[in-house]
């Protein structure tokens, strides 16, 4: 029976798991570092980052400009043979060993594909508590109150962590934002390396292949960047829009009339009677913005519209609007993007 320690009596050391594969930190990674500062402040403890070391040394810029900017004071790199990158069970065992050695009470990670897979493995390794996909937390006296949405966001579940066992906490990417807060002092991260003293065990599962999402085929409801074509795009313009989506790694969306013309499948149709979307960027090309279309894009973060009709209802609903003829603008846009991307995605 482990000794019961209340969350607040001993401020817990927080370990933040980040994915630095390829020498980069993605949006979710930045978001979780930002969240770590807030959580440490809530609980009154300290935090440090933990990652699997890659074959290449980390770029200085990543360490100083990115990790430092988010207030990372220390980063532990777990060294292991290259194949461990494909062995999640082994990763979990190594990370859990670091956590146990440090006496860390809380492991924090984003609930993305990797985080979602690692979180339960870590909790099992640590015989700890598990709370996944959190959308909120607050300190309740001696405990930490955690919230998540269940059953397609119809029900909110709240649980309390009393600190008696380590907690593995994954946070929903929906609430993560990569902001640098004034309260996060810029620092120069101390780098430590860590190696397992034990021989590595053999895991039961292995990642065989990583298939990157093809923006051309990804569900438009999940897409980060959508370029949508309306009836204002004639056949030639539509071909150019398709090219633009390839060049910008964006997803193609269409309006009902364009779907009716058979230029794209039903799964590409955006609107109240098609897919409801919430991309970071919604580029609306030659679509007027009928009520039924706007109903499906209202959660988009940034809407940019190009239309030849200055009275098109899309404009009052767009963050930026350009009155222009697509027949003139699209070829220029495609050329410009090509010159920047070198013609390849």
């Amino acid at each position, binding site marked *: 029976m482990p000794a019961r320690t209340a969350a607040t009596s001993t401020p817990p050391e927080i370990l933040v798991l980040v994915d630095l594969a390829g020498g980069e930190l993605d949006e979710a990674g930045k978001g979780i570092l930002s969240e770590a500062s807030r959580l440490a402040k809530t609980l009154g403890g300290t935090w440090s980052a933990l990652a699997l070391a890659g074959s290449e040394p980390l770029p200085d810029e990543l360490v100083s400009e990115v990790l430092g900017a988010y207030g990372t004071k220390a980063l532990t790199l777990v060294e292991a043979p290259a194949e461990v990158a494909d062995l999640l069970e082994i990763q979990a065992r190594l990370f859990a060993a670091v956590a146990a050695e440090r006496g860390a009470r809380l492991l924090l990670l984003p609930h993305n594909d990797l985080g979602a897979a690692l979180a339960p493995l870590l909790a099992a390794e640590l015989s700890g508590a598990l709370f996944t996909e959190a959308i909120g937390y607050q300190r309740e006296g001696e405990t930490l109150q955690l919230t998540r949405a269940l059953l*397609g966001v*119809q029900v909110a579940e709240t649980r309390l962590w009393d600190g008696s066992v380590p907690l593995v906490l994954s946070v929903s990417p929906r609430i993560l934002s990569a902001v640098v807060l004034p309260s996060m002092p810029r620092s120069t991260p101390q780098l430590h390396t860590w190696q397992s003293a034990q021989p590595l065990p053999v895991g039961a599962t292995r990642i065989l292949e990583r298939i990157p999402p093809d923006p051309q085929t990804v569900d438009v409801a999940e897409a980060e960047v959508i370029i949508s074509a309306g009836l204002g795009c004639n056949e030639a313009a539509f071909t150019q829009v398709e090219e633009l989506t390839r060049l910008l790694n964006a997803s193609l969306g269409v309006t009902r009339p364009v779907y009716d013309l058979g230029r794209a499948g039903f799964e590409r149709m955006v609107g109240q009677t098609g897919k409801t979307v919430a991309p970071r960027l919604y580029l609306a090309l030659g679509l007027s913005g009928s009520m039924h279309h706007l109903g499906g894009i209202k959660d988009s973060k940034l809407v940019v519209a190009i239309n030849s009709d200055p009275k098109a209802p899309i404009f009052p609903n767009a963050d930026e609007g350009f009155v222009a003829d697509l027949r003139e603008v699209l070829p220029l846009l495609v050329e410009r993007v090509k010159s920047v991307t070198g013609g390849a995605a």
Partner: protein
Amino acid sequence: MMFPNLFSPLKLGRTEVKNRISFQPHLTNLAVGNLPSERQMYYWGERAKGGAGLIITEELTVHPTDMAYEKLIDVYHAEVVPGFKKITDYVHQYDAKIFAQLNHNGQQGDGSLSRRPVWAPSPVPDVLFRETPKAMEVEDIEEVARYFALSAEHVRQGGFDGVELQFGHSSLARQFLSPLTNYRQDEFGGSLENRLRAPLMFIEAVRKAVGKDFTLGVRMCADEMIPGGLDLAQVQEICAAFEASGLIDFMDLSIATFYNLYLVEGSMHTPLGYTIPLAAGVREKLKIPVFCTGRINDPVMAEKVLAAGQADMIGMCRALICDPYLPKKAKEGRLDDLRYCIACNQGCIGRIGMNKSIGCVQNPAIGREKTWGEGSLKPAPVKKKITVVGGGPAGMWAAKMAGRRGHEVTLFDRGDALGGQVRTAMKGAGRDEFGVIIRNEKEQVEKAGVKVVLETEVSPERVLEGNPDAVIVATGSQPKPHPVGGADGPGVCNVWQVLDGEVQVGQKVCLIDYDGHHRATATAEFLADQGKSVHIICSSLFIGAELGPTQDLYLTRQRLLKKGVSFTPDIAVMEVSGEPGAKTIKGFNVYSNEWDEWSGYDSVVLAMGQAADEDLYFALKGKVKELHRIGDCVAPRKVDMAIWEGHQLGREI
């Protein structure tokens, strides 16, 4: 399965419904002699056949003081039971459930049909019917409760699966609940507890009559949408009180009242699914299943509402009026075959409000399901080679129906796409959904094996060269070339030219409206949206005189006024003269006969009627074996008649 939620079963009390689609109560005007009719059996049966899990009948009258509409069923008479049995047996063959709706309209009616005073909580006349009602005595309230119970017994004897009490947009019960219509000082007015008393009496009486093992629900007005009336917060409390009685099994919802009838049956300008937030709000407070109805015309959207937990049952009314087979097609994933309702309201609300039998612009078979329902189309005994000229709605429907029957059909149109005048009309402000009429049928025409030839001007010689067995002329109509003196002058054009972008319209516009329908008002709005100053002169008492029955009038006038459009009614225009910038309209007031003139316009836009395009018909008359003429080229009317005639001819040729 594309729609897992939509096609999951739902328990409403003791009744298990096979899916989440309910054909909602609405007037049909199909009853005969205030008794259930055979037409109603086939009407509701067709929707059961089409896959709806639940059918709820139109309102059935529970008391002789209520006869708001002439062709309702008087359910308090025991004579209704045999007719009900036929209806329920017919519907049950298709594995659908059927509930009956009971209603007393209170002051939302008048005594002109019943020859009795209307009854209401307080002597407050309804805004539409304007007749001061008799304030009900306590004995009257008790009598209505007894009649509700008696009626419910007939419903149960008639073989229904459940009963729904109408406490919605048009109901005595709502008038008791609403501070707008209940001024009583006794135990039936004042506090919410008191206002709930009469509706709860009705519920209790019905529950007692039908027993514990029969499904009973309420249709409540989710929000009266008018200052001083019931809002969502109050309705949540009311619904919770109904649920707490432990007597009801489900909560159906409607919206608004006759103060704002345009919201009860939202037309094309109303967003799809406009009542969803209200259903979600009521559902938050209840454990029993909650319905959501109101422009949910698409299974994709219905599925989203269910998946998001905003409602438990999707009410479809116009969607299934337009396409009774929507549930079946959705289940089979045949979205391309769906005929989507466009909420034009011309055939359904536009007809029933005028005491005509229910219709649908896009579904000519409605109300004639016995002879024209699914499966009634028979292969042609003699296969003919048919030429159809004109790819508007009339020609498309004729070609489609004839093609389905095995004829060899070629459809010609001079335009670059099918649709005829609909393609122009849909360019009017807010009218783009009108084009869905064409979208719905285009593929059906092709699937019927019709050969479509576009961008082809068809001369009589060309028709004769093809040596067809039969020719159908559906060449439509054009705006009258000279409807008024000076119509051919500079700066004068017609509404179709404006919408098609064929003319440049100046900044200061006068639109002459002899139409009273959307082609005039939607063009005026189209021009106002471009920042032009628009004045409408019309011959009627008010602009949009034809827009009342479809519930488009209120919002059309509201939008036009907000966009700065001004009106002069009662004027017969006799002459348009002058140069652009100084265009002058002369006319006289049709009541006072005094002449007047309006001047200083850059452009004059005419909505002054159509002329049939009949040249081809007369050129072919007597020269082909079989010649037919349908739609506007017979006499210019509206799209409902074009489709009606195309459908009928295609069935018979």
